[in-house]
């Protein structure tokens, strides 16, 4: 019986524990804390954080417990991540809950959503320069797209080994948008620019809203066919929403489907960060590049807005450019907050939704382009 006790003890987490597991568990708890106490993207940080705990319980190999073991429950649930199935399903739900009205009312603001994607490609170049292979560099660059599902999808297709660090980096920075963006926004704009008010948006008709997902899907996917899974589902979800007659399907998409998938995606992405796999110098470089990518994307959006103002009769508030990174809807809210710091009667939120959402489309297209070039 003694031998059994000893044998058992040797298989407990206390005996098997690696310092890296402890670090990751600690990070997981921080994620949970930020989600719950600070309300930073709780729907993502809490599942990822708890997933980190689950993935870093030290387990003996062979029983089928770890996420990287073939027959474990976590492995089955992780399948949707590695095969890129979850991200399109999440996009389906996002489509079914997003109102594209502001974008339809002021289409010129879409360009800001395009400009911010420059960050993706600049980071891609940086990652190449740091010695990453092209497929890895592309996956790192997409962090600047500020769109979790897109980042996971592209990484699953191009560099599956990096899913853990890239997903965690992407979601961390998305959660930290209220911390990262304001200084850059204030640095690159003058007070006078930040005070610019936007004119009221026109009312958009139902027909425009129905036609939009169809056209934008066809146009973008003819241009970049590899954006099909993400953009297709985004537009499909939006069509289900706007068609009204398919309301019950839209409800399913934006409740049970997206919520179930968010739980599974968050948890398994978190669990994929096993200490020994995750805590590498590579991950650290990814985190640094990711932060840069985010910053550059924000800067590109802001600067492009200023360039646009050189040509536009009716000036736009360059703060809106920062919303082009996506990170829906946090970066749009940051624009609102920063704008109101100068003038509390300036309401930029609705206008910021336009670059914000077009940033989602933009990064999906960028992901499609990178995917098709890399494989």
């Amino acid at each position, binding site marked *: 019986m003694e031998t059994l006790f000893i044998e058992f003890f040797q298989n407990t987490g206390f005996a098997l524990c690696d310092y890296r597991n402890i670090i990751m568990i600690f990070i997981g708890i921080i994620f949970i804390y930020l989600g719950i106490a600070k309300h930073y993207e709780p729907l993502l940080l809490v599942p990822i954080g708890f997933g980190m705990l689950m993935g870093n319980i030290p387990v003996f190999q062979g029983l089928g417990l770890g996420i990287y073991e073939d027959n474990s429950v976590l492995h089955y649930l992780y399948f949707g991540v590695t095969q890129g199935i979850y991200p399109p399903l999440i996009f389906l739900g996002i489509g079914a809950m997003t109102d594209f009205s502001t974008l339809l009312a002021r*289409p*010129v603001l879409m*360009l800001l959503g*395009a400009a911010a994607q420059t960050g993706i490609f600049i980071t*891609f170049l940086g990652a190449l320069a*740091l*010695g990453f292979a092209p497929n890895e560099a592309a996956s790192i660059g997409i962090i600047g797209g500020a769109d979790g599902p897109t980042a996971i999808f592209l990484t699953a297709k191009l560099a599956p080994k990096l899913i853990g660090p890239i997903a965690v980096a992407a979601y961390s920075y998305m959660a930290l948008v209220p911390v990262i963006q304001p200084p850059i926004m204030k640095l690159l704009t003058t007070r006078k620019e930040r005070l610019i008010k936007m004119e009221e948006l026109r009312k958009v*008709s139902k027909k425009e809203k129905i036609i939009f997902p169809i056209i*934008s899907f066809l146009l973008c996917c003819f241009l970049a066919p590899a954006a099909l899974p993400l953009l297709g589902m985004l537009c499909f979800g939006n069509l289900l929403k706007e068609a009204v007659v398919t309301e019950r399907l839209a409800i399913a998409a934006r409740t049970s489907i997206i919520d179930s998938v968010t739980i599974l995606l968050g948890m398994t992405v978190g669990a994929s960060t096993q200490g020994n796999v995750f805590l590498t110098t590579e991950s650290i470089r990814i985190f640094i590049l990711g932060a840069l990518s985010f910053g550059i994307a924000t800067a590109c959006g802001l600067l492009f807005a200023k360039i646009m103002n050189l040509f536009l009769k009716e000036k736009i508030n360059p703060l809106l450019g920062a919303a082009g990174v996506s990170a829906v809807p946090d970066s749009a809210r940051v624009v609102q907050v920063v704008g109101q710091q100068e003038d509390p009667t300036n309401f930029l939120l609705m206008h910021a939704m336009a670059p914000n959402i077009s940033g989602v489309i933009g990064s999906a297209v960028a992901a499609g*382009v990178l995917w098709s070039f890399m494989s």
Partner: protein
Amino acid sequence: MYGLQAILENNGWAISAVGITIVFTGLVLLSIFISQLHKFLDLWENKKEIKKIFKKEKTKSIKRISVLFTETHKDTAQKIYLIVQTMEKSFSLSKLLWLAKTRGLERPHSNLNNLLKAGIIMPDNKGYYIWNMDMFKKIIRT
């Protein structure tokens, strides 16, 4: 391999340039399309509207007035309305008919028929019927 050499070797500049160009092309095209869309739709709508004014409105109004309600009819309609109020918003015509019979209304079939023709009772397209209050007020409660 590191630095600029790595970028060159992996065709980095070209990929980035092409990539960002495509993203812009896509969103620019889309934004142009959208900005024209509502003008186009307005035209289309107006075309229809104009047609409607000349055609459908006429036929519709004629169609409705074609049902003549005598005072007796109106009286029965009022009674039927009282029954309808006891039912759910979407009601079954057969149930209404049965209730009307039960309460001893005269010629319930023909009366219901009139209300249907006049558009006071309207199908809800789900197999049930609803009471068109506006029409009721316009025709009966005048």
